[in-house]
């Protein structure tokens, strides 16, 4: 589980972009849930890590946020900025390619 933390460093932002690209508008908790479900609880994105990453992506202009009042509190949703769609998709593609290359380097040990 903790090994994943090391690997997530550097890939987390792109993972978030990919999730948002795939699923549209989401809020933080929802993103965490999705990641856990999609990987059978293997990859757990922590709240300590994703919110700073999301804020950074917003600052870079790749995603935009909007707020909504839900059940007695304010919820922040994120989605890909249309304006930056090309940049986002190219970043996701680059990581995807990299993963492919990694796979050819990391032959299965069994």
């Amino acid at each position, binding site marked *: 589980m903790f090994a994943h933390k090391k690997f997530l460093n550097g890939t987390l932002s792109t993972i978030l972009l990919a999730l948002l690209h795939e699923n549209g508008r989401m*809020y*933080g908790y*929802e993103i965490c849930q999705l990641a856990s479900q999609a990987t059978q609880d293997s990859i757990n994105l922590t*709240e*300590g890590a994703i*919110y700073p990453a999301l804020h950074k992506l917003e600052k870079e202009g790749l995603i935009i946020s909007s707020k909504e009042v839900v059940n007695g509190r304010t919820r922040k949703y994120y989605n890909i900025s249309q304006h930056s769609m090309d940049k986002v998709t190219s970043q996701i593609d680059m990581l995807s390619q990299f993963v492919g290359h990694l796979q050819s380097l990391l032959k299965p040990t069994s």
Partner: protein
Amino acid sequence: MTNTVTIIREIRIRLEAKGISDANQLEELEDHYISSVEHKIKMGQEADEALYSTLKELDSIEFEYSPAVAHKTLAFAALFCLLSLIGLYFYLFVSVPSAASNNNTKSRLEAPQNWPIATPSKIITSEFGPRHHHLLKTKKHHSGIDIKASQGTPVLASNGGLILEAGYHQKYGNYIVLQHNDRFSTRYMHLSSLTIESCDIVVMGEQMGNVGSTGLSSGPHLHFEILDNGQAIDPMIFLQP
């Protein structure tokens, strides 16, 4: 009994206890944990249990370095530097009450500080203040100090500055007026000779002439005055004993 209001309140309190003070951060994390509790309840957990386990998770999380923290640290650092600089300024340039006397003030950098003669003898034959004038036989106010020195002893600038006046006067003899800054000036009287001219610039300790007995003087000595905004003050406040 745990209801929505309790849940929201408990989460909020626990987040603040974690040191999260940025309003936006607080808001977002609040939503995160409340959503977590709601999800657990939806999955069948008891409300109390859901809240309790979420609060435990919250406690164990270490929140990453946030921009709010960085800004706060930077703000404190900047404030500290500013206060240090202000403190330094006051220490160097602003007058503080001297322990020596009630009303006189002392500024460490600006005031004439050096003994104005070259000899180690620092004998004052006549102090600042009221005295019986030995030649005129009347009570007078002595506007400086008389320093005992033998004829020819070099007279030195008490601090750096511009020679305002250097010449001969019936009462003062060969005398020098040295302006240090817009506040302090010094006067040197009864010199036997002058080695500088008016409008010369001197540095602290530079020789300007020699001790003598010219003018209204009964024997070789240096009459030395310090003026603060044109007002003669007791030089002993500033001169290191």
